[in-house]
C-alpha cells in the first residue's frame, strides 16, 4: 500500500462528470452504467437538467423583482447565460447571483435600470442578513458633555450602505415588492443617492439629499462632529449648521444606524 493515495483517476472521473453537467461534454458516458429502460445518457441528463434548474431557481429567489420585471421567459434566458459565464464558487447558493449586475450592464446597456435593479435587490438582501450590531440609544447622545462634541466620532451599523442610482430602480423595486405594477423605467437626469440599512430585523431604505450624502461620507469615514459641521457648510448657513448636524445625528440614532460613539 503506497503512503500517498493516487486519486488521479478519481479526479479525472469527477472532472468529466462536471464537464457533462456544465457543458454537455459526453466523455463520461462510457464510464456510466445504463439499462435498456434508462440509458446512460438519460441518467446523466437528470444531473445536467437539475443543475440548470436549481441555479435558475436560486437566481429567481435572490432576484425576484428582476424576474418580475423581465418576465419568466427572459429571466430564464438570462439565467442560462449567467450560469454558463459565472459558475458558483460559493458553499452557499445564497451568493450565486453576485455577478448578475455586471452581466446586465454588458447585455442590456440601453436598459440601465435592469443592472441597477439587480444591484439594489442584492444590496437590500445583503442588509437583510448582514452583521448584527447593538445600536446606541438616544440617551447616549444626551449624556455627552458639550465640550466633547467637536471631536466625537460615530460608528455606523455594518449594514449601512449608500448607493447612487442613475435610474428609478428603487421605486421599481418598491412597487414590485408590493405586487403593484412597476412605474415606467427611466434614466434620471442626475443620480439620486439612497440609503439602505437594517433597523433591528427590518431592512429599511430611503432617499438622501446631497447634504446628508456628504455628511454620511464624512462620518462613515471616521470624521468628527466638527468635520460633519464643515461638510454641511456647503448647504446651510453657518448659524444653522450645528442644529442641522445635531438633527442628522439624532435621526441616525433614532433609525438605529449608530452603534458606537467615541
Amino acid at each position: 500500500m503506497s503512503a500517498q493515495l493516487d486519486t488521479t483517476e478519481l479526479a479525472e472521473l469527477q472532472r468529466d462528470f462536471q464537464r457533462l453537467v456544465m457543458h454537455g461534454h459526453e466523455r463520461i458516458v462510457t464510464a456510466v452504467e445504463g439499462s435498456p429502460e434508462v440509458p446512460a445518457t438519460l441518467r446523466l441528463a437528470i444531473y445536467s437538467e437539475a443543475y440548470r434548474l436549481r441555479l435558475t431557481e436560486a437566481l429567481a429567489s435572490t432576484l425576484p423583482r428582476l424576474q418580475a420585471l423581465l418576465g419568466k421567459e427572459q429571466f430564464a434566458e438570462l439565467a442560462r447565460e449567467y450560469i454558463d459565464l459565472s459558475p458558483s464558487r460559493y458553499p452557499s447558493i445564497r451568493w450565486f447571483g453576485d455577478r448578475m449586475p455586471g452581466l446586465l450592464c454588458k447585455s442590456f446597456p440601453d436598459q440601465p435600470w435592469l443592472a441597477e435593479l439587480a444591484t439594489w435587490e442584492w444590496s437590500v438582501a445583503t442588509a437583510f442578513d448582514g452583521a448584527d450590531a447593538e445600536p446606541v440609544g438616544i440617551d447616549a447622545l444626551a449624556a455627552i458633555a458639550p465640550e466633547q462634541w467637536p471631536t466625537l466620532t460615530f460608528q455606523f451599523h455594518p449594514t449601512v450602505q449608500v448607493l447612487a442610482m442613475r435610474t428609478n430602480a428603487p421605486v421599481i423595486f418598491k412597487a414590485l415588492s408590493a405586487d403593484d405594477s412597476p412605474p415606467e423605467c427611466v434614466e434620471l437626469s442626475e443620480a439620486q443617492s439612497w440609503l439602505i440599512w437594517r433597523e433591528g430585523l427590518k431592512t429599511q431604505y430611503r432617499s438622501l439629499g446631497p447634504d446628508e450624502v456628504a455628511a454620511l461620507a464624512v462620518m462613515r469615514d471616521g470624521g468628527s462632529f466638527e468635520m460633519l459641521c464643515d461638510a454641511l457648510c456647503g448647504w446651510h448657513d453657518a448659524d444653522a449648521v450645528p442644529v442641522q448636524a445635531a438633527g442628522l445625528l439624532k435621526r441616525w440614532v433614532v433609525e438605529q444606524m449608530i452603534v458606537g460613539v467615541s
Partner: protein
Amino acid sequence: MSQSSPHPSLGFGLGVRPTHYDALLGERRGSVSWLEALTENYLLPGGKPLHYLERLRADYPIVLHGVSLSIGSTDPLNETYLREVKALADRVEPAWVSDHLCWTGVDGVNLHDLMPMPFTETALRHVVSRIAAVQERLGRRLVLENVSSYVSFTRCDMTEWEFLREIAERADCHLLLDVNNVYVSSVNHGFDPLAYLRGIPAERVQQFHLAGHRNMGNYLIDTHDEPVCESVWRLFHAAVERFGALSTMIERDDNIPELDVLLAELDRARDITTSAQRAKSAA
C-alpha cells in the same frame, strides 16, 4: 471527540424551513422533539435567519445538516467553509453535524448538487482520509448521509452499502440513513433495498431521513416536494426493525405545506416506529 456510540434518539423532528418559524415558536411550540437546520442557510453574518435559529435553539435540540462539505471531491478541503461551519456549530451547539457522502464539484466549482461516488477502494480511502481531517477541524464526529443517485459507474469494486459500511468503520464516523434515498436508488439501479439495510452496520446509524420523490415512470427523482410514499413507509418499517427507534425526521424542500400537514406525516412515522418495534420484540 464525542462518544463513539451514536447519540441517543432525539425522537421525531422536522427539517426547519423559514415558512414554519413562527408556528414552531408560537402556537405549535413543542410539536416536534427536534429540528434539523440546513447549515449553509445560516452561514451568514447576522440578521433574521440567525436570529430565528437562535430562538428555535432555545426551544428545541438542533442538528446541523450541510450540503457543501463535498467530502468525496478530489479538490482540497475548503478550509474557510470548515471554519465557518465550526463557528456556527460553536454558536448553535447542535446535537451533531451531518452532510452527504458525495462530491459537489471540482476545480473550485460548486454544482450545488450531491454527485455520486464510484464505489472503489481508491475513492473509499480518499474519503476516509478526508473524514479524519474534517472531524479534526470540527472537533466532533461527522454523520454522513447516503444520497439518491441516477448513475452508477462501470468501475466499481463494491456495492453502495459495502462502501458506506467501510467508510463508517474505517473513518469512525456515523451514518444518516435516508430511507427515501435507499428506495430511490434501489429502483434506479435495480438492487434490493432490504439487502442495503442488512449491509449497513447497525451500531453506526444515528438518524433517519424520510422524504418524498417523483416517479418518472422508469426511474425516480429525489425531489422532497411530495409526501412520503407507501413504499418508503414500508422500507422505513424494515429500517426501524433493523436499527431500532432512532432520531427520525421528514425533509420537505419544495411545495412546502402547512406545518400541521407535516406533523400529521410525522405521526405516521411515530406509529410505524411503534409497530416495527413491536414486530421486532415479537420476533
